[in-house]
Structures are given as structure tokens and as C-alpha cells.
């Protein structure tokens, strides 16, 4: 029990927040509301898990919010053009994967820093999405697309099913496969990884494709929820995805990844958002609370690191920490 808490430090604050909400509101614990929270968390966890790989590698992908928009637009416009549902879904995922591939190639082959490369693709993809839709909504009414969010196989909401599958795959990949170890190895020391003969560039490209794919899926889920696609979808989503991962305890500087932490991070954020809604606080407080949460989580991590330093030698040299930050 103690071990579990140590491994997943988010568990305690999450239970605390839930307990507070259960006491202060009558509606938080109702089945309908809990389901809403979990569905929202599931949708957020899916890109979060892919982003976990990226941060474990010590890098970011800022373009995922724009990917959400372009993927949603791709799916909706394919449906509007009379294509089959399968084609539209694959088009959206394909758009996501292509954006990821472009990110990976620009970063590894052209040597552009990930931060700037994905910043540029974020602007470009958003522009492409706005240009393609000409600023209009692409409204669809497709029961098949709706099923992604509203469907209930075995009575469980579809997003939760998807998130569980993605989380299981993600956990297994990070903890049980060579690829996962490679990703963490690159995150803890890229030069060492290269010198031990890992195909560093190919792994990095693969991770960006993965993040792109998850962005495509995220776009599908959002479009399914709203039954439309447009150039404004997913504004600022990149920060949500990164926040979830950081809250979950994945080291910002790479080398360590916690898929379970990411999932809990998503649940935490959506619980707080839901709670603030139930308590009728203005939306501004939601932003403030997410920001404070992020800072608090990192401050706690830094505190724990300092405590540990007393007993164990610090494995990461100070210079690596500083320069990566």
C-alpha cells in the first residue's frame, strides 16, 4: 500500500479532492457525473499516454493541438464528401501520423530543436486547417462517428474502453518491450544511447509518429463529441496534454515514464474542472487551478529530489539537469 502511494504520488491528492467534492456537493458522486468525469479523463488520457513517451525521451510535441483540428477536419470533410466511415477514420489517423512523421524528420534529419520544430508545425498545421475550412464549420451527422464517444459496448462508454486499451498498450510498451527501454535510455542520456548503438533517430521518429497518431485519435473523439470539425478545434490542447504527463510524475527531463501516473493526471485535471463547475465557480478559476496544480506538482517533485539527495548520491549531474531545463 505504502509502496503504491510512493510510486504514484498523485493518488493521495486525487482521493482528497474527490472526498472534498463528495462532501461539498450532492451531485459529484452521482453515477452520471462520475461517468462524465471519467469520459473526459479518458479522452485526455489517450494523447497524454503518447506524450508520456515523448517526455520520457526528454522532448516535447507542441503541435498536437493543431493535429486535433486538422484530423477532425479531415474526417468530417471526408464524411461530407460521401466517403465511407472507415475511410474517414483512417484519413484522420493518417493525417495525424503524417504530421508526426514530418515532426520526426524535421527534428532528426534537419537538426531543428524539437521545441521550435513542433512550434513551427503547430503554426503550419493550424494554418492548413484554417485555410482548408476557410473558417467555416464542417458539420456532420454521422451515427458511426458519434459512436466513438457515445457508444457503449458492454455498457461501458467507448472513450473509456479506448483509453483502457491505449493505457494497457502504453504501459506494456514502456515497461515490457525493448522499444520502451530504448525511449527511456534516450531520455536519460542521448549520446550514451547513440554510442551503445541504438537507432536513436528512428526511435525518435517513431515516437513523434505515435504522438501524431494519438493527436489524430483525439481529433476524432473531439469531432465525434461536437459532430463537426473546424480550424479552431484543439486550441491550447498541447498544454493540456503536457500538463497531464507532468502531473503524472514523468520526469520533465526524460529517462522516466509513468503511464499510470499520466492516466491519474488526466483524472485529476478533469475532477478539478468538474468540481469547479459543480461549485459554480467562473471558468477563470479553472485556468488558475490548472496552473497552480502544475506548479505545485513540480515543486513537490523538486522537494522530494532534494530530500533524496541527503541519502543517495544524485545520479544526474547538475549540468544535465540545468541545461535540459
Amino acid at each position, binding site marked *: 500500500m505504502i509502496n503504491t502511494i510512493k510510486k504514484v504520488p498523485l493518488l493521495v491528492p486525487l482521493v482528497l479532492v474527490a472526498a472534498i467534492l463528495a462532501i461539498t456537493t450532492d451531485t459529484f458522486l452521482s453515477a452520471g457525473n462520475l461517468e462524465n468525469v471519467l469520459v473526459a479523463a479518458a479522452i485526455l488520457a489517450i494523447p497524454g499516454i503518447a506524450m508520456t513517451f515523448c517526455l520520457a525521451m526528454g522532448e516535447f510535441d507542441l503541435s498536437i493541438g493543431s493535429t486535433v483540428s486538422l484530423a477532425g477536419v479531415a474526417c468530417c470533410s471526408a464524411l461530407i464528401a460521401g466517403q465511407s466511415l472507415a475511410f474517414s477514420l483512417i484519413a484522420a489517423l493518417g493525417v495525424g501520423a503524417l504530421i508526426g512523421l514530418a515532426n520526426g524528420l*524535421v527534428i*532528426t*534529419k*534537419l*537538426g*531543428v*530543436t524539437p*521545441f*521550435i*520544430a513542433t*512550434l*513551427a*508545425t*503547430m*503554426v*503550419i498545421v493550424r*494554418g*492548413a*486547417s*484554417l*485555410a482548408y475550412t476557410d*473558417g467555416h464549420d464542417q458539420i456532420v451527422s454521422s451515427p458511426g462517428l458519434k459512436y466513438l464517444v457515445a457508444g457503449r459496448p458492454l455498457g461501458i462508454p467507448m472513450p473509456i474502453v479506448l483509453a483502457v486499451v491505449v493505457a494497457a498498450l502504453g504501459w506494456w510498451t514502456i515497461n515490457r518491450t525493448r522499444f520502451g527501454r530504448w525511449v527511456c535510455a534516450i531520455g536519460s542520456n*542521448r*549520446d550514451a544511447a*547513440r554510442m551503445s548503438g541504438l537507432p*536513436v*533517430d528512428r526511435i525518435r521518429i517513431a515516437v513523434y509518429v505515435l504522438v501524431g497518431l494519438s493527436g489524430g485519435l483525439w481529433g476524432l473523439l473531439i469531432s465525434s463529441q461536437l459532430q463537426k470539425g473546424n*480550424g479552431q478545434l484543439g*486550441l491550447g490542447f498541447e*498544454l493540456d496534454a*503536457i*500538463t497531464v504527463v*507532468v502531473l503524472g510524475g514523468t520526469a*520533465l*527531463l526524460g529517462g522516466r515514464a509513468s503511464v499510470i501516473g499520466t492516466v491519474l493526471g488526466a483524472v485529476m485535471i478533469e475532477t478539478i474542472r468538474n468540481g469547479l463547475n459543480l461549485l459554480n465557480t*467562473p*471558468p*477563470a*478559476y*479553472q*485556468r*488558475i*487551478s490548472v*496552473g*497552480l*496544480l*502544475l*506548479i505545485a506538482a*513540480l*515543486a513537490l517533485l*523538486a*522537494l522530494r*529530489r*532534494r530530500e533524496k539527495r541527503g541519502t543517495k548520491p544524485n545520479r544526474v*549531474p*547538475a*549540468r544535465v539537469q*540545468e*541545461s535540459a*531545463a
Partner: protein
Amino acid sequence: MSTQTTTQKPAEQPVTGSRSPKVSLGRLWDTWGVTALLILLLLCTPAVAPGFLEIENLQSVLRESAYVGIVAVGMTFAIASGAFDLSVGGQLALTSVVTLMAFNGGGTAAAVAAAITTGLLCGLVNAGLITQLKVPPFVATLGSLFVFRGIAYLLTQDGPQTLPYEHVDSPFAKIGSLNLAGLPVPFLIMVAVFAAGWVLMRRTAIGRRTLAYGSSPSAARFCGISDTRIRLFVFVLVGLTVGIAALTYITRVWTADGSAQDGFELKVIAAVVLGGTALKGGKGTLIGTFSAVFLVSVLNEVLVSQGVESAYQRIVLGLVLIVALTIDGLRTRFAAPGSFRRALRPTS
């Protein structure tokens, strides 16, 4: 002072000695490359956009660029020290809202004081998070971006703060609209901030220490440079530039709420990076930043005059960023001491 003499020598290193001195063309490009591109663009622009050279239009380009440029000075210091400040958009929104509130309550002097104070306070908050709570700058400023914007939203719950029209002739409103000798005041303020920034970076100990710290924090620490002081200096400086920028911004648009200038941080970072300041720290060029700010706004102006929609303007901006960084990446790879074969290998 003994610390000064010991710190200045290593500080010299990152500025000039990072690659072999033979490649002088490369070093020239570092500082003046973007400026050359800007001049090239300026020479071509009248051919495609005849209206560009009209005095009104030039003035509006200068005025529009000012607030981005002013904050870019602070951001150049931040990036040269090896850190980002992602919260400048939130800072600008919050400072603008507070400034307008102060103006409506107490007039011009109160507004100016409020702008500077709010900016400085925002910077202090960031510095405190980073030095006292030991949160990495990227996340600390990401978090405070949410917080600053949130507070700005809270303050404007009953509608955005505005500058009432009857104050059109007040000295405060004039900051944004007045021209001195044909040059808009915001632009003159921007030039002053750049000049001050240049002196600070090249002619003072703290500026050199910032560069030294950016190029190698641990080496800088061994030379007795204090992390806390560098972080404090850099982030408070960013806050100060935001305060000044808010004055030129708010007197131009006359209204602000929590959503003011969404995505501002990216605009500023793009300008600094395009200007040639190395993302990994240790190298900062304010001349480059200055030219890059105008490169982006002139490019936008050209696109607008050609009837290119704003959606495509984003695409062009993104591509310019990638191309610039690719050239930079290739150039440093080939100019770095070491064999040609090694240079051809992908960067790590």
C-alpha cells in the same frame, strides 16, 4: 572586484570561441544574417506591394511591431541564459488589464506605475517559483501562464477593460498614437529598450554572466556566479519589458481582457530564435532579434498586401521558422571543429 575579473574571462568564451575562428563568414551571419535578409526583403517589397512605402503604412508597421519587439529584448536574455519564459502572453494580458483599471481610477501616472509594477511582480513570481521552489523554468512559466491569464479573466468578468473615448487626448492615450519627427512613439520606446538591452548584455557584468550561465551553468557556478541572481535578473527583466510593452500595446488597442494576445509567447520566442539567439543558451544577439521582429512583420505586411489570407500567413511564418533553424543547424554542424564526416552525421 575579484569575482568580476574571474567571471569575465569565461564569459568571453561562448560569445566568440564556440567554433573555429576561421569561419568568419559564419560568425558574421550569426549577428547580421537576419538583418541582411530584412534588407533584401525591404528592397523587394515595393515591387510587389506599391503601397508599402507610403509613410502611413510604414508608421503602422513600426507601431505594430513595437510591443513584440520590446518583450523580445527580455526574452533574448531569457533564452541566452538557457530558459524560456512561456508566461509573457499571460503577463501582457494581466498587465494590460491592470493598467487600464489604474488609468480609469487614477490617470496617466497611475497607469504607467501600474504597468511597470505589475510587470515586475509577474517576473518576481516566476523567479520565485524557479529559484525558491526549484520548479524548472519551462513548467514554472507554463503554470504561471495559466495563472496570469486566469487572474486577467477574473478581473474582467464583467466585460473587458477599455480606454473610454473621451480620454483620446490624454497623455496616456497619446503614447500609442503620437509621432515624433515622423516616428511613432512606441517604436522609439522599442529602440530605447533595445539600446538599453544591448548595453546591459555587452557592457555590464550581469549581462556577461547571463551569457556565461547560459553556455554552461555548472562552469558559471564554479566561477562564483549565483544561479539565483541570474534567474532573478532574467525573469524580472522579462517582466519589466512586458510592463513597458503593455503601455504601447494598450494605448493602441484600447481594450483588454484575459484572452488578449493569445499565443503571444510563441510570437516573441519565434522572433528571438529567428534572430539567431541559440536555444541552448550562451549566445544572444539583440541586433538579430531587432531585425527578426521586423522581418516577420514586413513579411506579414507583404502577404496581406497580396491578399493572402491569414491562414496562409501562419503557414509561411512556420516555414520561415523551420528554414531558418535548418540553415542554422546545418551551419553549426559544418562549422563545428571536427571532421567533415562527423558533420554529416545527424545532430544529437
